[in-house]
């Protein structure tokens, strides 16, 4: 299809979609309205479950199955990336070119690594109380490790990052979520039922299974992001195809 024809098809499609969507918008309840039946029910249920952060309650209690699916999407895409970015038979691993990083930057990187990591852990741990949770904190924690690459150098990152361990933790985090859900079944209730004691409202141990599921997600996300970035880094810095002339020779 030529570019011109594609543009015509696209224009027709975009126009029709825009018309359809705009017509639908005129029928929507106005922005900022006060009618949110599901939301109101969810808030009541979350308070009854003594979880201060209602969003975490929805994610890890009321609609915990969605989060299981979401973690599986993350898990699957990491596994998929590992498979897609594997080193193939016609490629070799070369030592990455050393990069000279100024001392001030190195100091900043080394200093900020523990600080960022702590902030990440804080965000995970307070997931059921204040904004944050396993996913947000997990990504922050994983980013902290990569300060070693962006502010120090790649070998420093590789020393601090036993990849096998992170792959293990990735699987273990997913398995932990699945098994915590099964605890509900074993206790005689439904899958993913919140069967633990609910604790005191607005404390770290409140919410029953919510903090545990949150922690499982935190472990999985941290390790998943580390594994994901490890494969992108390896492709960009280490893996090289055999040169064309070598292959033909």
């Amino acid at each position, binding site marked *: *299809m030529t570019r011109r024809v*594609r543009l015509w*098809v*696209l224009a*027709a*499609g*975009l126009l*029709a*979609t825009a018309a*359809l*969507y705009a*017509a*639908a918008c005129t*029928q*929507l*309840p106005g922005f900022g309205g006060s009618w*949110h*039946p*599901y*939301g109101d029910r*969810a808030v009541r*249920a979350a308070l009854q479950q003594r979880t201060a952060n209602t969003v975490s309650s929805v994610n890890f209690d*009321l*609609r*915990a*199955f*969605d989060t*299981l*699916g979401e973690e*599986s*999407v993350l*898990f*699957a895409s990491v*596994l*998929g*990336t*590992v*498979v*897609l970015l*594997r080193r*193939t*038979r016609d490629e070799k691993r070369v030592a990455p070119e050393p990069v000279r990083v100024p001392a001030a930057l190195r100091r900043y990187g080394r200093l900020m690594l523990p600080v960022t990591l702590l902030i990440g852990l804080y965000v995970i741990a307070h997931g059921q109380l204040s904004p944050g949770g396993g996913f947000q904190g997990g990504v922050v924690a994983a980013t902290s490790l990569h300060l070693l690459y962006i502010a120090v150098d790649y070998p420093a990152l590789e020393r601090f990052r036993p990849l*096998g361990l992170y*792959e293990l933790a*990735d*699987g*273990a985090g*997913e*398995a932990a979520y*699945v098994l915590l*859900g*099964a605890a*509900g*079944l074993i206790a005689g*209730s*439904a*899958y*993913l*039922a*919140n069967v633990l004691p609910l604790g005191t409202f607005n404390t770290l141990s409140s919410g029953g299974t919510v903090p545990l599921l949150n922690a499982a997600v935190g472990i999985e996300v941290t390790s998943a992001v580390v594994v994901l970035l490890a494969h992108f880094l390896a492709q960009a810095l280490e893996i090289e195809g055999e040169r064309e002339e070598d292959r033909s020779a």
Partner: protein
Amino acid sequence: MGRLLPLIVVVPLLGAALLVAGGRHVPRPVAEAVAGLAAAASAGLAAVALTRPPAVSWLGAWGPRDGHSVGIVLVGDRIGLGLAALTSLLVVAVLAYSWHYFDEPPHGHGGAFPALVLLFQAGMCGFALTGDLFDAFVFFELMGVVGYALTGYRVEEARPVQGALVFGFVNSLGGYAALLGIGLLYARTGELGMAQTGRALDESAGASGRGGDALVVAAFVLILTALLVKAAAVPFHFWLPDAHAVAPTPVCMLLSGVMVEMGGYGAARVYTTVFAGPGGVPAAGARRTLLVLGVVSALAGALMCWQQRHVKRLLAFSTVAHTGLFLTGIALLTPHGIAGTALYVLGHAGAKAALFACTGILLDRHGSVDECELHGKGRDTAGTGLLFAAGGLALAGLPPFGTSLGKALVEEQSPWLPALFVLVSAVTGGAVLRVAARVFLGAGQAGRDGEEGSEGPETAGGEEEPETGRRVRRPPVPMVTVAALLLAGALAVGTVPGLTGAVTTAAEAFADHGGYAAAVLDGRPAVHPAGAYDWWTWTGAGLGLLSAALAVGLAALSVGRRSRAVPGSAPLRRLHSGHVGDYVAWTVAGIGLVSLLALW
């Protein structure tokens, strides 16, 4: 039993997690055994659930109070469970097929392939069982993500990565459109469950006296877009031949066997549960939309299928054609149409997976899936040839295959349907039989590349890497056994007498808009007594025989000819360009087309 429903989805997830966690240290046979066990356990659970009365499972014990819930529900109705069971069985077959013969896994990840297959299974089972719109979106994405990774699995070659990319773009775009639609529905109804949303739409229609306004239609169109992308209906179908042509053979068996059908299932499920009531989309609009797209897909798929020389691509286009027929069956919106389509899907899954299995054997023996290159090379493997030809006849609708029975049930619904079904079955079956005759009998002339008649672009299937690492000398026993068992399954669908009755009852429950909501929200399952049902009739069997005979005739006529090209079809072939931009443009144009059809 209801409480255990989630395990059908969760057991494969746990299997995959264990395979990845143990990744480096688990030897390959152990990994494969664990995967097989997890898949089989899930299949067993689904089968046991099928024998019990239908049940629903509220996750987290957040059951409804006064018809409202804050949780997610899994619905174990017969059709959804049946699809989950079919998926799981096919996954077991695929794991057996790829046992020990599939190409070397990535270093240190012996369990990567089986783990991905298990995740795929979990995604499809979750999608089949969920009774919640957003949860369905999550599982749709899970299916998608695993699908892209599996399609691009053979990264050493050029075409798989391109096919996977195209698949990824079009499918994700469809998913996001659906999410917009779900957002619109949520704004209107304040609900996410299918039963709750449907009921809320009906109530608001009852209160205001108007149903099916622009918002509801837009939500319907946007959600339908994602499902039609999955179902590969024209003009959303472009990704399918590209992805199927390049994916590893075991993956093709799953993609064509069940994943594409999930799209049709989703369309039917969402329509009947959410939009079929007085507050939804008028039945005429929904019927027109599905019918037009179904018929066009069936015809275009058959036309494209006939002209392929790349055998996997040929089978892929036959999937487009047959999915078009499924959509046509669903479009009737009658219990009989759905029952027939369900039987047809069961038979098709067995036949199509068997055909891919045989093609995989050819690929592993000869390093090619090109009809011309393979000419006569299959003469020494009569067994594989017989299976391949039987698969072609099953596609063509030869009684007593399940495909034929399903088609017959659908055809009875309207006088013009037999013509469409016979034509499409004959052409797709004929194309497969033509390949069988050339490859396994050496009929016709050995084609050489340049002169094989092609007007317009085409994809050849030569110079492919066998998936077994190196070429195998004889067809591996597990591969042939799997293909034979799959065909036996397709045969059983048409010959086991009780099945049709059970499916008809299930279809009646499936099409019952109010009954579904009552069963899910009020705990009052509607009673659908097993009544009279149609089985084989003389007309149905006769039409099946006719289309099979036509397929054989077409194959016989064409086998000696040099050209497969159909005059005048070059512009259509040129549209299949493998270009992401083209396909995305067609997808939005499709949204426009569907909204026109739904509104008219």
